[in-house]
């Protein structure tokens, strides 16, 4: 594998992991918000 192959592997993996984690947080946050009263969501 060329140097650029290793670079692409490292950058792609990092991007995928961070994007998946961020999306999971947002989706789960939206789902839980529906079940928690608005007065307990203090960052409004």
């Amino acid at each position, binding site marked *: 594998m060329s140097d650029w192959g290793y670079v692409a592997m*490292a*950058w792609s993996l990092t991007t995928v992991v961070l994007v998946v984690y*961020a999306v999971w947080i947002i989706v789960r946050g*939206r789902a839980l*918000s529906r079940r928690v009263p608005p007065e307990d969501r203090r960052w*409004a």
Partner: protein
Amino acid sequence: MTSQLSANSRPDPATGVDGPTGPTGTGSRTTRILGLITLVGIAIGAYLALVSSPQDENMGDVVRIMYIHVPIVSMAYVGCALTSLGSVVYLWKKSQWWDITAAASAEIAMIFTALTLVIGMIWGRPTWGVWWVWDARLTSTAMLLLLLLGYLAVRRIPADAATRSKRSAIVGLLLFPNVIIVNRSVTWWRSLHQGTTILNTLKPKIHDQMAVTLVVAMVVVALIFAWLLIHRWRLAWLEEQLDAHELDRAIAERRAESAAATGSAS
């Protein structure tokens, strides 16, 4: 007057119920601005790291992996330090805010430490010729990952909130000392891993443009960490609130059942 009343009693966007309104998730105006700045930073950082910065005379293009590896491990250290700090403050003041901060920070630090190890392996294959070696830096980083997994596992052991927080805070205290061991491992023991490069002010070992790229990458990864931490903190807060509401509901149901049973018996 009528329009004011109708504006105040509009449905909550998250629950659809009339009354006070709240955010629909973990986002807010601040996090949206932070997210936008972070995205711009990612674009600039990627251009500098992948296009603009020069090849390394020894590593060639593989040096471009360093622009994510070094910032990610640095923020993993920050995450561990924050977890230890949160654990100390929780044990001292029983602060729920710091307990949640410690937990949110530990989860992000765990992901960043795992990424550090995998990215390091990808860098090690073309540079050292092997994916893994039981070197002091690599082994101590793997132990740090195990400790973070242990912290998160302790938080999942069924217990009341105070017991869970106290147990995990005790484990959290171990994280920062372990970070010092990981960071100093290349100095204390013979190591294949390179020694101090960036903070070596007496004999700088890095090209100017590479140094600028690395600083930009550090700032960008710090922004990503901050964005994730704020959202993860809010998610953990929602989880705590939901647990508390469900516990209250369960207690009320049991009391009602008990009262009904007592009434029918008499």
